[in-house]
């Protein structure tokens, strides 16, 4: 790929189609006997997306490798039988719903860090948080596996860093690498734990001061990834516009 940036200034690869060999990466992944988890939330009306997400994820997400899906939902009764690939596992975890969707979004960080601490760290090596309202359209494989992984947007016209200095998510003028989406991020269980802890702490502190970051948990994610740079970036090819 000669048309795009494939390496960041801190020497983290940016994953684009054509830059990697999935065969080589699969061989390396299998050798290490790794297990990857996916965490996703289907709260309130979002239960509607569960089947589409699980169907496409089973087919396309790390196909052939063991994946543990952790589905947090307030309506577990609405989930009819889901066909899982034989190597995958599904864990349905009931949660409470909130009145504002922003609250649902922002408490995800807290839920993820809590569950990593109590459960996930013993079950998976790598963990990815993916929005439920996405449908995978092509294979996403072990090229995503690294210590701390963010997915970048190419044209963040609608998105920007939080700039108000009162918010913990504030990024000072003139700083910033890329805009990362909160729809798809992850990494090793320990790195994701640190990330979600830091973000949920920032979110809580903002809440105590009566301020809400512009793009909610995504603003906090971007602040974190600016000062704790990802070890691998996924190109906009890996980012689904959830508006579609």
């Amino acid at each position: 790929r000669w048309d795009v940036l494939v390496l960041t200034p801190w020497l983290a690869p940016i994953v684009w189609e054509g830059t990697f060999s999935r065969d080589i990466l699969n061989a390396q992944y299998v050798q290490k006997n790794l297990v990857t988890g996916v965490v996703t939330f289907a709260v309130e009306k979002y239960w509607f997306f569960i089947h589409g997400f699980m169907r496409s994820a089973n087919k396309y997400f790390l196909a052939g490798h063991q994946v543990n899906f952790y589905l947090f939902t307030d309506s577990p009764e609405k989930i009819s039988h889901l066909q899982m690939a034989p190597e995958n596992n599904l864990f349905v975890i009931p949660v409470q719903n909130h009145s504002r969707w922003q609250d649902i979004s922002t408490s995800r960080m807290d839920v993820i860090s809590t569950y990593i601490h109590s459960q996930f760290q013993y079950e998976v090596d790598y963990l990815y948080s993916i929005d439920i309202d996405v449908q995978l359209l092509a294979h996403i494989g072990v090229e995503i596996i690294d210590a701390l992984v963010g997915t970048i947007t190419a044209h963040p016209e609608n998105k920007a860093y939080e700039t108000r200095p009162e918010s913990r998510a504030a990024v000072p003028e003139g700083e910033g690498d890329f805009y990362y989406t909160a729809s798809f991020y992850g990494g090793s269980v320990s790195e994701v734990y640190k990330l979600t802890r830091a973000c949920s702490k920032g979110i809580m502190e903002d809440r105590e001061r009566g301020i809400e970051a512009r793009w909610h948990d995504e603003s906090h994610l971007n602040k974190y990834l600016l000062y704790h740079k990802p070890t691998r970036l996924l190109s906009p090819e890996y980012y689904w516009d959830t508006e579609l």
Partner: protein
Amino acid sequence: AGSGKMHYLPYYLPCPEIFSMKLQYTEEKLIQLFPQFFYQQPRVLEPKRQDVLTVTPWLAPIVWEGTFDPEMLDSVYRPLNLTIGVTAFAVGKYTRFVRGFLESAEKHFMRGYQVNYYIFTDSPESIPQVRLQPGRRLATVPMQKYPRWQEISLRRMEAINRHVAAVSHREVQYLFCLDIDMVFHNAWGPETLGDMVAAIHPDFFNVSREKFPYERRSSSAAFIPEGEGDFYYGGAVFGGLVKKVYEFTRTCHMTILADKANGIMAAWQEESHLNRHFLSHKPTKLLSPEYIWEDRIPKPPEIRLIRLSTLKKNYKEVRD
């Protein structure tokens, strides 16, 4: 190159102590934080180098001038208080290269970091006293001089491995193994640090794999068949986390011993074994030929900066 009947030292059984050593490494120092820093924003649609490959198919970075921000990396690595080790072998007449190597290293190699130079030599008294910057020290390590230069070359892996086990695993976090007959010309910094680092040989970076001088005899443990191979790596530069270098040198030494037992010496000595190993256990970071140049090769446009280069010399004379 090795062919025909070779007179080699009789092989000896693999050293059991190399196998069973459990080393207590110094605590791994992980990057904590990228400090606040002003720099030009990286642009997704503006690749830095369009003339060379900067990422391998297994997503390891290939370090070229322009691909990295040296100040950003310094700001992240300096606070970790690392000690970087360097091994170099100055045996027989090769002691004449030590001064040039060390003086240039003091100017260009990991400036601002703690460095331990480990010079393996059969004549410590011929190692010149070179003034070192604060935080940098030199230690000589006794090394036997074998009658044949190929043997000295082959034994490097064993010597480095033993030394890691005896000394350097406690003293450094990262270790680079370099040839002594080289001089630094430009900065060599923390962009080179990684778990397992190999360098692309300057004669073969623009060449297809059929022409790589891999060992092609299937009786050798360093054998790589036609149609296989990623890059041709140079034996003059390799390194990484001290733990990884320990494992790597052990494996190479074992395959070298296996060849001895079968009366064969690989085409390019330990470099052939290094290439075999890196084919099956891919490096996590590659250094471009900027980091392993040779003075005799005219500089092509892709090489913007020569950082470390082998001196032109009369091989017959210096190898005795």
